[in-house]
């Protein structure tokens, strides 16, 4: 039996790459392949689904074995992979450019620089680089990968339908009854996600359009220094009551925030794909986004994509979406339509085609 085993630097319980890896395993096993997951480290909730990468046995003579590396960060796993005799594949989810982190978290910047080095060093050894967006594929090509293709990230969009936390939803609705619209952004609190620019746009929007508006920033911190700066910034511009830096929330609370949101605003400077855009589409929340990196590709017309993110431009765009019923309805409809392109069935079929061609 042929085998395609996956290697993951870090395997999380709820993150997009963790669930993608499990879906990839499902597809590979569906093709009759032996497929195990080996990880650098694993969250305790999912530790039983994976094995330490050092325990991967040497291939038996004559056995057709491939190793598929889930690449999104620097890891000793990549260097270890290079020394392995098996044929190698890579599934690239993007590496945040180090300059975003260097001023805030120098050690993270160094890790990301190392990750880019590994990406380049793996290139000659990888027979096929699979990117989850055309943007990421361009980076693989630039890093010297000879053979590349695009397979959308394997996400079960049905899992976006969490049971809503009704207490949270009631609280949010009580706020809304007092007036003001609700902006939402979901993603790690990190310099490249530019939550500081979001706050600037929001402050301008409150000043020019809607003094009662609220901003919900959801997501765990990737940089204590950046988080602290955001907190101090919010306080300094007098938005302490209007901006909710909520951190990580439960799935039920997240569903309530989406259900309550009037607009999803993303002004990230770098996104390799941006899964929360799909969540916003799923929940029928219109999207206004800065067109950086893979964002225009992920949206493909299912959101208002801005060429610049000066605070007044973002504020004006949000106001347009919130006051133009036709535009809002069409963006929501386009979002539902676009979401179909990322259905699990569609992405699984694409991966099946790629793997079948590889093994033929």
């Amino acid at each position, binding site marked *: 039996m042929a085998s395609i085993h996956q290697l993951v630097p870090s395997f999380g319980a709820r993150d997009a790459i963790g669930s993608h890896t499990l879906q990839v395993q499902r597809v590979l096993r569906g093709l009759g392949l032996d497929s195990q997951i080996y990880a650098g480290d694993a969250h305790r909730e999912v530790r039983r689904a994976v094995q330490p990468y050092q325990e991967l046995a040497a291939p038996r003579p004559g056995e057709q074995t491939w190793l598929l590396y889930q690449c999104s960060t620097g890891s000793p796993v990549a260097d270890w992979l290079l020394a392995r005799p098996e044929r190698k594949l890579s599934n690239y989810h993007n590496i945040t450019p180090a300059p975003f982190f260097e001023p805030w978290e120098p050690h993270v910047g160094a890790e990301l620089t190392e990750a880019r080095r590994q990406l380049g060093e793996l290139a000659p050894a990888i027979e096929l680089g699979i990117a989850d967006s055309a943007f990421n594929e361009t980076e693989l090509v*630039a890093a*010297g990968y000879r053979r590349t293709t695009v397979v959308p990230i394997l996400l079960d969009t049905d899992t976006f339908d969490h049971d809503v936390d009704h207490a949270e939803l009631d609280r949010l609705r009580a706020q809304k009854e007092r007036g003001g619209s609700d902006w939402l952004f979901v993603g790690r609190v990190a310099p490249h996600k530019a939550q500081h620019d979001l706050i600037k746009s929001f402050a301008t929007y409150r000043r020019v359009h809607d003094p009662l508006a609220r901003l919900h920033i959801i997501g765990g911190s990737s940089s204590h220094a950046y988080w602290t*700066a955001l907190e101090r910034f919010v306080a300094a511009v007098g938005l302490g009551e209007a901006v909710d830096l909520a951190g990580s929330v439960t799935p039920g609370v997240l569903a309530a925030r989406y259900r309550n949101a009037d607009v999803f605003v993303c002004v990230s400077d770098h996104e390799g794909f941006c899964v929360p855009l799909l969540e916003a589409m799923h929940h029928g929340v219109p999207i206004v986004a800065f067109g950086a990196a893979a964002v225009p590709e992920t949206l493909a017309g299912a959101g208002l994509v801005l060429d610049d993110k000066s605070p007044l431009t973002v504020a004006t765009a949000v106001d347009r979406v919130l006051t133009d019923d036709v535009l809002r309805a069409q963006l929501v409809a*386009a979002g539902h339509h676009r979401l179909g392109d990322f259905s699990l069935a569609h992405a699984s079929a694409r991966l099946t085609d790629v793997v079948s061609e590889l093994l033929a």
Partner: protein
Amino acid sequence: MTDVGRADGLGALDLRRVLVEIDEEVARRRAAGEIPPGLEHELDATFARFSPAASTGSDSTSIIAAAERTAFVDVDVPTASAMPGVPVVKKALRKGMAWYLRYLAQQTSAFNAAAVRALRSNDERLTALEHASPAASPHLRAAVEGRSPTPTSADLVELAVATCSDATGRVLVADAGDGALVRALAGAGVDAYGIDPRRTAANRALADGLDVRVADVADHLGGVADGVLGAVVLREVVERLPAAAALAVAEAAVRALAPGGALLVASASPAAWARGIDPVAADLSPGRPLASATWVEALGRLGLEVEAVHQGPVEADLEDLEPGTPGAGAVNANNALLRDALFGPVSYTVVARRAR
């Protein structure tokens, strides 16, 4: 066109038109003073107060101000503590160590102050230099960058397809402009992609299904591994960059070329460029096209073998008199001199190749 809404029968909506209307609305509000003056700058400055110096981007004034704020090394460490008695201990330690720490801190602070003073001096000199260049103004730079891409000439398309047909890696076109060259190469079975820093042009090409990304050629080549590209076509970009920057791009392209890979430098000829470009763009452009002979010299020094210099079509011509017409000899001789002086090929393409 970017249309949405077709899926559910609501009718198509031209998002590009919406974006234009938003831009107009922003311009109108700014002109009408509806946004408080300085609000955006004030927000930037406020966040900069809480940011590490290196994160404040290209605003050198803010960066230097942040460096100045942190230049002085304070030896009076905080002594507060929630634990009883600890502040007293800390104060005693601080007092006991002050003579030692202050000696070190004074030297460090002196160095920091001198370094920041040097930075500020250099910043002032750089600002003065920038003020001497029209390209330093973001508004004027935008006027140049907003120019529509130059159409790709048919002779360049033909030459590039012929040269790149046997490329052993991907072929990069920069600037991709209207995407015509990427389309022609792809149509000929060449694995080509393009980059262009002008978002509108690149998005239009992307919308046409071409592999064209918004990127600056120098940044892009900086991330390309050595020896992987089958060929590189540099067009337009070599006309708008200052000479040193254009040559640096060529050097990066040579590094990225696979053995045997071709580099094509396609440019307007200097005289034709000066005549053909609109005067505003000509005045504000940071660079000028180089002569083909300069590229031949430069590419040779970069280790490439220059295969050919293809001259483009002649822009205009003077009609010679029929031989035998009275005075034809003198008129035609003068025409020849005038042709050399006034007209000539509008463009050229230098084809060079890396050794196998």
